[in-house]
């Protein structure tokens, strides 16, 4: 992959990768740093990697970086027990469900969250998600299914 092709990857995937991090770790500054780290990893090996595999490489790197970050910060990424309607007020509830889902995703377990982010925001196939997250395709589907079911339950309970 040439320098120009690498720059094209930056144009195409930087936003995507940033959102992936934002959705998963809920910290924009850290997401920005992690995005830079992921692209730095790509840049270091850009001579070896073909442009067709750049996206997968970026997200695999991103997945590993995120796991390291979570382990490092020991951040609790699962659903908070003390979640209450105060956090999402009545006015916010008036938003469309689609907008609400983006907020509610923080309540999901990390694995489900990553799977659904990769699926819905990054548009990866289940096979690609399985490759990135090092899970079986079947498990990815189960996680995506359960994530949607949990989000729906939360939405229903709010109404």
């Amino acid at each position, binding site marked *: 992959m040439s*320098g*120009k092709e*690498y*720059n094209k990857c*930056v*144009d195409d995937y*930087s*936003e995507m*990768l*940033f*959102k992936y991090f*934002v*959705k998963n770790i809920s910290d*924009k500054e850290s997401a*920005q740093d992690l*995005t*830079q780290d992921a*692209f*730095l990893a790509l*840049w*270091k090996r*850009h001579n070896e990697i073909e442009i067709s595999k750049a996206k997968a490489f970026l997200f695999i790197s991103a997945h590993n970086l995120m796991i390291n970050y979570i382990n490092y910060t020991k951040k609790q990424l699962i659903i908070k027990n003390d979640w209450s309607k105060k956090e999402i007020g009545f006015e916010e509830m008036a938003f469309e*469900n*689609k*907008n609400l*889902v*983006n907020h509610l*995703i923080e309540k999901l377990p990390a694995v489900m969250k990553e799977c*659904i*982010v990769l699926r*819905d*925001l990054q548009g990866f196939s289940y096979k690609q998600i399985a490759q990135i997250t090092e899970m079986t*395709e*079947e*498990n990815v*589907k*189960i996680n*995506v*299914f*359960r994530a*949607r*079911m949990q*989000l*729906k339950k939360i*939405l229903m309970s709010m109404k």
Partner: protein
Amino acid sequence: MNNITKENIEAYILDYIEGNLEDNMRKELEEFLNKNPQYKNLLQEYDPSVRLTDEKEDVFEGKNLLYSDFMQSKTNEIKIIRQNKILKRAIAVITSVAAIFIFVFIFVKTQDNPPTQQLTKTTSQTKTIKHQQTEIKPQSEEIICEEKEFLPQVAAKIPQENKTNSAKDTAKAQLNSNEDEKRYDVVVKRRRLSPELEQLICLVQNEWSDAPEKVLVKEGNILQMNYINEDRTSRGRIDMQMLAYPDNTMIRYVNNGAESSCKQYANPMQDPNSEIVIKNVTLKDLDSIIKVLQNRR
């Protein structure tokens, strides 16, 4: 994919709803749901419209920092930073190793040095002691030599009590310490078996050497000898009492209770007992001198 089970039913329902199942699998899933109707709820509850949407708020601001030009410089920076890190680590390792080495060296030196200093001191002391010993040794030899000559002369002057008191040697040291020179004058008093009796025993053993059986019993300065004649027809007891005088020695024989004879010997008895005065000795030498005197018996 694997067979449909209770564990993976959710994955098949997802594929079913998204239209990704082949016909045979669709039929299989429908059959499974008919057999397990409790999972039909999943099919009904699943809402594919619950999806994450792209939010315009999440804008990545650092795109300029990701382009190749910047990355090139950044990697150079990172290389320099890493080189510095490696250098720092190497320096840290070297300094720590050096510090440990110095510490160990100092520790070993401090462990070794004082003793070596002490040793040198002690060796110097021993040297001086040895020197002193070499100085003293001839003196102690002289003392011993003197003793042989001196003792007979002293023997005559010794009171009778001292001569007959004890059969055991006792050594008493009277130390007159001289702090400046750390040398002492020693007076050794020896008390032992009455020397006259020892002399008497020697005389009797010589005179009665032909006696087949002799039993000598020492009591004070009286020697008792039980005897049996050669023909074993008679037996008896001879008491011998030695009387020591400055010029001669008298032995009185009492045979079976009756005084039989009295012999006079020209030489006075030699009594090794006496006061032995040893001057100008060290404490260490004193011990060895006392041992020498005790072993003389």
